[in-house]
C-alpha cells in the first residue's frame, strides 16, 4: 500500500509531476506489452479475458488472448487486472486553467469581448501544469481542452495527449471546435452585451452571417492569402482571424461546440445549427433529458456535464441519470471534466463516468463515454479510443474495476511510452 502514499503525497506530487512531465517527454518509445486479466478493447474484439496488447513503435501491433499473441523478445511487460484504452476527457480546461488558480495560470476565459473565436487553445495550453500529470496518473491520456464556457464565443479548443513538454509535442488536433455559450453563463452586466438569451442568439447569428458573407466574397482563401492587386489596396479588406475561425464552422470543417443547459438554450443551439447548416456539439446540456427526441432528430452529439457537477443556478435540474438516458436513446454521449473555478480545480472523467455506471449505464456504456464516444465525436477515432491494431499505443492499467473508488490506476502508456507507473 505504501506506494499510494508517495503517489498522492502532494509535495512529492507537485515536484514529481513537473519532473514526470519532463521525464515522460524524454522517454524513448519503448516496445511494450500489457497483459490484463480483463482487457476492454472497446473494438469489435470486445472484452478479452487473459488478454494482451502489444505496442510497437508507439502503435498497437497486436491485441488478443495472451495464449494466442506472442510477445516479441525484449519487450517490457506490464500486467494488471484490468486494461482499457487510454481514457479521453471529452471537454475540460486542464492545462489552461492551472492548479494554483492565480491570475497568471488562468487562461481559459478572455473577458475583453463576448465573441473571440480567433483565440486558440494551443496558445494557452501548458503541458507542464501539475493537473495534467494528475489526470494522466488516473489513466487519462487524451484531453479535449481549451477555452471554457463563459463568453458567447470564448475561443477555440484543441485536443492534446497528456504528455510532451510543449503543446506541439502534445497536440493531436490544433483546432477541434469553436466554443460558444448560451444562457446565463455568457451574460454580461449592463450596459455590456449580451445581457439576455435573445441578444445572445442575435449576436451569434450576426457573427455567422458575417462569416457566410466573408466566405461568399471569396476573401477566405487558403493561407497565404492572395497578394492584394496593384492599385486596389483600399478596396481589399485585410484578413480577419476572427471571421476566418467562424468561416471554418460555416464550411463544416469544425463544429461549433455550444454550452447550453436550460432546455430553451439547447433549443436555441439546435435552431442555429439548422439555420446555418453547421455541425454542432452540445456541451454540458443539463436539461438534455427533456429534449431527447429533438436531439435525436437533429443528430447532435452531447458532451455531457460531469455527473457530479453542483446542482446550482442553471444546473439546478441536472441529473446523474442523463448520461444513461441519452445513450439508451441512441444519442452519442461523451463525458467531460468541465471547468472548475475553485476546489477541486479539475474533475476526473474516470470518476464522472463511474457515477454514470452507477446510475443507469452499463459498465461498457459508461466506459464508452471516456473512450470510443469522445473519439468519434471529436473526430479522432482513427487514432484513439480503442485497443485495436494500428491505433495509438495509449493504454490505462488498473488493479481492479476502474470505476471502483478503491481500485487504483497502476500504469499509463501513451504512444507506447510508460508515462506513469504510480499506484494511484
Amino acid at each position, binding site marked *: 500500500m*505504501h506506494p*499510494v*502514499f508517495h503517489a*498522492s*503525497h*502532494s*509535495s512529492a*506530487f*507537485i515536484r514529481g509531476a513537473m519532473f514526470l512531465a519532463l521525464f515522460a517527454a524524454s522517454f524513448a518509445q519503448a516496445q511494450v506489452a500489457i497483459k490484463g486479466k480483463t482487457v476492454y478493447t472497446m473494438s469489435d474484439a470486445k472484452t478479452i479475458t487473459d488478454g494482451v496488447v502489444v505496442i510497437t513503435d508507439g502503435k498497437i501491433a497486436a491485441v488478443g488472448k495472451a495464449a494466442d499473441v506472442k510477445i516479441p523478445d525484449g519487450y517490457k511487460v506490464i500486467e494488471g487486472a484490468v486494461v482499457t484504452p487510454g481514457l479521453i476527457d471529452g471537454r475540460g480546461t486542464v492545462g489552461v486553467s*492551472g*492548479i*494554483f*488558480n*492565480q491570475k497568471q495560470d*488562468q487562461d481559459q*476565459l478572455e*473577458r475583453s469581448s463576448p465573441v473571440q473565436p480567433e483565440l486558440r487553445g494551443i496558445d494557452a495550453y501548458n503541458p507542464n501544469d*501539475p*493537473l495534467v500529470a*494528475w*489526470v494522466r496518473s488516473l489513466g487519462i491520456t487524451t484531453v479535449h481542452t481549451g477555452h*471554457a*464556457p*463563459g463568453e458567447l464565443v470564448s475561443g477555440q479548443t484543441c485536443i492534446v495527449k497528456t504528455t510532451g513538454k510543449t503543446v506541439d509535442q502534445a497536440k493531436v488536433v490544433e483546432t477541434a471546435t469553436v466554443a460558444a455559450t448560451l444562457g*446565463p*453563463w455568457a451574460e454580461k452586466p449592463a450596459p455590456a452585451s449580451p445581457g439576455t438569451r435573445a441578444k445572445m442568439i442575435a449576436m451569434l447569428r450576426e457573427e455567422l452571417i458575417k462569416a457566410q458573407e466573408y466566405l461568399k466574397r471569396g476573401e477566405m482563401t487558403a493561407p497565404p492569402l492572395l497578394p492584394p492587386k496593384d492599385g486596389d489596396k483600399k478596396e481589399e479588406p485585410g484578413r480577419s482571424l476572427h471571421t476566418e475561425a467562424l468561416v471554418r464552422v460555416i464550411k463544416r470543417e469544425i463544429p461549433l461546440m455550444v454550452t447550453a443547459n436550460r432546455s430553451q438554450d439547447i433549443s436555441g443551439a439546435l435552431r442555429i445549427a439548422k439555420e446555418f447548416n453547421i455541425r454542432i456539439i452540445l456541451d454540458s446540456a443539463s*436539461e438534455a*433529458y*427533456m429534449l431527447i427526441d429533438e436531439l435525436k432528430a437533429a443528430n447532435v452529439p452531447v458532451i455531457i456535464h460531469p455527473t*457530479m457537477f*453542483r*446542482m*446550482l*443556478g442553471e*444546473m*439546478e*435540474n*441536472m*441529473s*446523474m*441519470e442523463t448520461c444513461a438516458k441519452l445513450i439508451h436513446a441512441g444519442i452519442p454521449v461523451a463525458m467531460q471534466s468541465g*471547468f472548475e*473555478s*475553485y*476546489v*477541486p*480545480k*479539475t*474533475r*476526473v472523467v474516470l*470518476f464522472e463516468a463511474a*457515477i454514470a*455506471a*452507477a446510475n443507469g449505464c452499463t459498465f461498457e456504456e459508461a466506459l464508452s463515454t471516456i473512450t470510443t464516444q469522445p473519439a468519434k465525436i471529436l473526430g479522432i477515432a482513427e487514432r484513439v479510443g480503442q485497443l485495436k491494431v494500428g491505433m495509438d499505443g495509449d493504454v490505462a492499467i488498473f488493479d481492479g474495476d476502474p*470505476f*471502483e*473508488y*478503491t*481500485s*487504483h490506476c497502476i500504469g499509463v502508456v501513451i504512444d507506447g511510452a510508460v508515462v506513469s507507473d504510480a499506484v494511484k
Partner: protein
Amino acid sequence: MTCKPIHAVMAIFVATLFVVVPGAICTAQTKPIAFTNAHVITIAGEEIDKGTVVIKDGKIAAVGKADAVKIPADAQTIDAAGKFIMPGLVDTHSHVGGVAGADGSSPIQPSIRVYDSLNPFDQGFRRAVAGGLTTLNIMPGSGHLMSGQTVYVKMRGLKKAQDGKGGPTIDDLFILDDNGKQMGGMKMANGTNSMGNAPFPGTRAKSAALVREQFVKAQEYRAKHDAAALKGDPDKMPPRDLAMEALVEILDGKRVVHHHTHRADDIMTVLRLQKEFGFRVVLHHVSEAWKVAPQIAQAGVPCSVIVVDSPGGKLEAAEMSWATGAVLEKAGVHVAFHTDDWITDSRLFLRSAALAVRAGMTRAGALRAMTIEGAKILDLDKRIGSLEVGKDADVIMLSADPLSVYAHVEQTWVDGNKVFDRSKAEDRLYATGGYGAGSAVKPYMCCAEHAVQAASTFGQ
C-alpha cells in the same frame, strides 16, 4: 405522530416557562422495526454478516447476529438480505440550508448564530438524507476569522410540508444538550479566505493578532463577571455582551471551535492559539495536515478532512492529498470527514471514505470517520455514530458495500422515522437529481464571493 421531548423533566420545566417545547422529537414510529438478514456495520465492533437491527421508540433496541437477536412479536420486519446497514452518516462541516453567517462589517463576529439564517425548506436537506446523512454541523463560511456560531442538526421533519403538518422549522432540526440548549460550535478560519481589505486582516500575523486580542478581552470580561458574581455585587457585573458571552463559552470549553485551516503553518498557528487560550478545537479541511501529523497528534486535536477530486483551486490546497486520512490515522489522530457541501455533494459523501481507503486508510478507520468520529467531534458520541442499544435510531440501508461506487442509499432513518426512501419517486428525485431537485439560488459561503459567483456562473 407523537411528539416527545428529549428530556422529559427538562421539557416540563421549559414548557411551563415558554409553553412551546423546542427541539421536541416527533416520532411516527409506533411499533418496532426489525431489519433482518443484513450485512451490519455497527462501527462499535466487528461487521456482522447476517445480522439483525431492531429499532423501537426512536432508539436502537437490539443489534446482533440473526440467531442472537429476538425480534419482538409486534415488529414490522424489513428483509435486508444483500443490503448493508450502518449508522446514519455524520457530516462535521456543511453549508446546506442557504445559511449566511457574519456580514462584511468586521472579521470577528462571535454573536452571529447561523441558525438565525437557516432555511429548513432548502432542497439541500433532501439531498443530504439521500446521501445517508442524518446529523450535520452547519456552519457559516470561512470568509471571516470568526464567522459565527454553528448549529448541530438532525434531519428530522423534512417531510412535514408534504404531509400538511406545517414546517419543517428549525425547531425540528435542533439537537439539544442536557440543559435543553441548542448545540453548536464556533466557526473560525485562518489563511487566505479570511484575509481582505481593512477591517479584515491583510496578513497571517495580523489574523492571529486580531483573534488573540478578542480572546484576551474575553478573558478580562470573564474575570470581571466572575469577580462580580463571587462578591454578589450586581453593580460590578459587566453589561451583557453577546460577542463576549460566546467567546467565554469557548474559553470555558463549552463551545468547540471548528477551525478552517489548510496550510501546515496555519495549522500550527491554530494549535499555538489553542494552547494559549485553552479552547477545544477541531481542525477542518487540513490540506497539509500530512506534513504535521505528529504535531497534531501531540496536541490531541481531532481533524475533519475534506476529500476532493484533485488538488488545487487555491494556493493553500495545491498540496492536498488523498492520503491525509491515512497519514493522520497512522499518527494516532482522530479523523472524521466532511462534505463542505456545496464544495462536495452530500449525496456523494461516502466517496470521501472510499477515496481515503484508496490512498491507504483502513476500512474500519474510514467508516468510523464517517460516523462515530464525527459524533465525537460534535460531543454526540453517546447518542449517535454507532449501532448500539440505547442510541438514537439513525440508520441507513445501502444496496451494496458503502465504499463501492455502485452502492445507493436506499433508506435513511432518523430517530426511528424513515426520512428517505429511494423506492419512492419524490425521494428518488433528490438522489439522482432532475427537474426541481436543485437550488435556483446561488449559495452564500465565504470568503471569496467571486469564487461562489464563479462556481455557479463560470465567471472569474
